[in-house]
């Protein structure tokens, strides 16, 4: 185990389908003010924030160097400023690395995404593919995920009914989360009669377009008392990138997630996640991913995702009590949303969804079509 990095404070706004009347700067500023208030951190060049990491995406924002649009509202002007143009959880890893390397001891980490701005999120993800072999075919994350869904469901005995259960539960859980997007409650029949989006994925199996922003303050172990009485520690982080072409991967193998989890567990000294970790927040932007990622982090047996749902695995391991990404977080920010939920749980601030005595939590993030890139963070009270 290495040195530890503390999350001193987290802030977020409520997930919303369309904050048309808010610029993303407004959304971030709200979080920024909250972090300032919670921690009383300053921008003093000796003792305050000298490094700010932001997470945003040029294409989602329709702005080259998208961070340029927000540096002033997050206090990044005249300071070290870096942008994570990838899944937000990697920004957490980046902030952790800055602190562990001794390059800085306090880092502000902010992120935003307004999916409502663009006409088509599918077009945005189509641009993630190369212009010769994949993009002309119209491949996007929905179609890539659908291909993975079919292969995974066949392997793990996951049925349309199982997916309906995942959706129903996600929306029910989200009702207990004041920051969750407001989605209508549904029953299994509603889900199973929802139209096909890309077979075997139905429209309700896929997360809805969402606007959201967040902030986090991180610092080194030595200075944590200056900012909070209830620090949450990052004790492990791991990430892994799988092959680019869908055909080069075994879409059901969870190769990159298993690797990412293995690295995070090693760092955090976790031998059996089923026994040692009290809650799991998984980035299930499509319903099939909940059991699949559960297999990947080792809380469901390989190839048994369907049975795991039947046996109450989601409740047994406290998976996605927040509603998960399926209920609605921006794709880019699913990991930060997962980590923030873990922090609230570990601080005992998760209200009606609180897991009593939670000491260790796992946040996972997936990015790229069919979970190509995976990252796992272990957080401890």
């Amino acid at each position, binding site marked *: 185990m290495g040195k530890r990095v503390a999350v001193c404070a987290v802030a977020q*706004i*409520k997930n919303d389908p369309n*904050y*048309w*009347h*808010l610029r993303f700067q*407004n*959304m971030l*500023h*709200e979080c920024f*003010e909250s972090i300032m208030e919670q921690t009383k951190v300053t921008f003093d060049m000796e003792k305050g924030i000298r490094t700010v990491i932001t997470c945003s995406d040029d*294409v989602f924002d*329709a702005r080259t160097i998208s961070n340029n649009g927000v540096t002033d509202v997050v206090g990044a002007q005249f300071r070290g400023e870096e942008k994570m143009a990838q899944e937000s959880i990697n920004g957490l890893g980046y902030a952790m690395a800055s602190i562990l390397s001794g390059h800085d001891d306090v880092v502000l980490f902010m992120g935003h995404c307004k999916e409502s701005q663009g006409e*088509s999120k*599918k*077009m945005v993800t*189509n641009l993630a593919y190369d*212009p*010769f*072999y*994949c*993009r*002309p*075919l*119209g*491949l*996007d994350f*929905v*179609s890539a995920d*659908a*291909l993975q*869904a*079919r*292969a995974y469901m066949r392997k793990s005995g996951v049925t349309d009914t199982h997916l309906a259960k995942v959706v129903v539960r996600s929306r029910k859980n989200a009702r207990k989360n004041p920051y969750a997007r407001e989605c209508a409650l549904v029953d299994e029949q509603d889900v199973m009669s929802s*139209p*096909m*989006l*890309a*077979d*075997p*994925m139905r429209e309700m199996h896929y997360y809805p377009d969402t606007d959201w922003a967040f902030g986090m303050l991180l610092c080194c172990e030595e200075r944590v008392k200056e900012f909070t009485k209830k620090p949450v520690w990052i004790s492990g982080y791991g990430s892994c990138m799988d*092959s680019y*072409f*869908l*055909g*080069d991967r075994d*879409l059901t193998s969870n190769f990159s997630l298993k690797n990412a989890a293995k690295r995070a567990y090693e760092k955090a000294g976790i031998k059996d996640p089923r026994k040692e970790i009290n809650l799991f927040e998984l980035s299930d932007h499509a319903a099939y991913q909940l059991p699949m990622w559960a297999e990947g982090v080792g809380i469901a047996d390989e190839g048994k995702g369907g049975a795991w749902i039947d046996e109450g695995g989601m409740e047994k391991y406290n998976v996605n009590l927040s509603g998960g990404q399926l209920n609605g977080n921006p794709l880019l920010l699913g990991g930060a949303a997962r980590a923030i939920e873990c922090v609230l749980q570990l601080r005992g601030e998760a209200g009606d969804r609180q897991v009593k005595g939670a000491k260790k939590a796992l946040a996972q993030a997936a990015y790229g079509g069919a979970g190509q890139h995976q990252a796992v963070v272990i957080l401890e009270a």
Partner: protein
Amino acid sequence: MSLDFDRKDCFVVDGKLALPYTYFAGRMGSKFITTLRDEKKIMGVKCPVCNKVYVPPRQTCEVDMTDIRENWVELRNTGEVTNFTVIRYDDKHLPRKAPFILALIKLDGADSPFAHILEGIAPEEVKPGMRVEAVFAKATTSTILDIDHFEPARVSKVQVSEPAERTQAPAAAPRSKEEMEQDERRKAMSKKVIITAALAGAATMKNQNPAVPYTPQEFAEDAYKCWKAGAAMVHVHAREDGGMATHDHKRIKDTHDAIKEKCPDLIVNMSSAVGMGKTAEQRISQIIHVKPEMASLNTNTMNFSLVDRKSGKVFIDFVFENTFTMLQDFGKAMEEAGVKPEMELYDMGGLDNWLLISKQGFFTKPYNFNFVWGVAGGQAFRPDAFMTMKHALPEGANFTTCGVGTDQFPAITMSSLAGGHMRVGLEDNIRIPTGELAKGSYEQVEWAVKIAEIAGREVATPDEAREIMGLRKK
């Protein structure tokens, strides 16, 4: 600050990211793409150490890091489906209208499957493991779409080994129910005739026929009468109050919108010629601004003059400029904006010009052409020239026709007999066949309806016209 505040004055600004690029395909990619394009061969690369065959190709084996760039192998055009999905949504980045099948296909000779479109089979019939074969594209795009799609293999491996099966003639590729239904609908409907009224043009003035519309209101009234008489589409050049053809965006949009408001059902086809002496930018920017369902796309640079038909005396000499670059840029801009181009053919050369540019692959089917007869600078109407043009069209293309002055009615009669559509209107001719001034474009529409009756053709409604011409209602 609160996230909830008075939103009365909140304003939302429209924007767009649209940035053309050129990408180097890479040394491996270049060979793959040019071989696919020029020789209709699909190439992979084989790792000499682990024997894995990669497609699309790359220069390093990801398993053992061996340099494999020189180790090209030719793959077969057949393979098997390993996985698939059915895309049920329409979007601008998609190569087909929904629903279509996107499959992972492992070619014979390759170890890794790659994604491609699967056609000729209903989604519920697709099974992993089924045999498929590549269908190469007629026009190249220099991408993976030089394979247009895959379809069920006509003779599968299993059938080859079973004599009983082999004696049967290979069956035509099965097509999905929806596709067959759509084809049937198109066929049935192409018997129907679309009547277009070109309400004003750029040059016909009230002193020639007082019924020529100038104001948005006059256009709307006139369009309404034409629709009542049987027209499915109107072709519009907007005018100023004084009658001059205008490129002013507001005036053009007002004219378009007035017609749509009065007559929401009707298809509005806008001119990208606008009038004499307009710049290329003035001509295309208004189309992109207004985004009508359809717009004219002119195919050749030509004389477009006023010459006295009896004496041959030149009144006004004008060169109508439509360079290849304009044909390309206007066409692309329209396709990108969702405006269906109607290709204006003033002679066979115009069609050849379009066929050349269309090799770039950006024009979407079905293609719609208009044969224009009798322009001073173009060709006069002749039945055999008409049939020659018709035979030279791409398969499945729609055509309509219009003629200037006395060419109008003979040309549309010919078209109605040859399976084409008809355009009338004061833009082309101010009279009806009796020689009297037309009371409006609508009176010519009434004549066109009579011609259709004689030719045994039913008149298409606007929605039927949309189906035939591949328009999306706005």
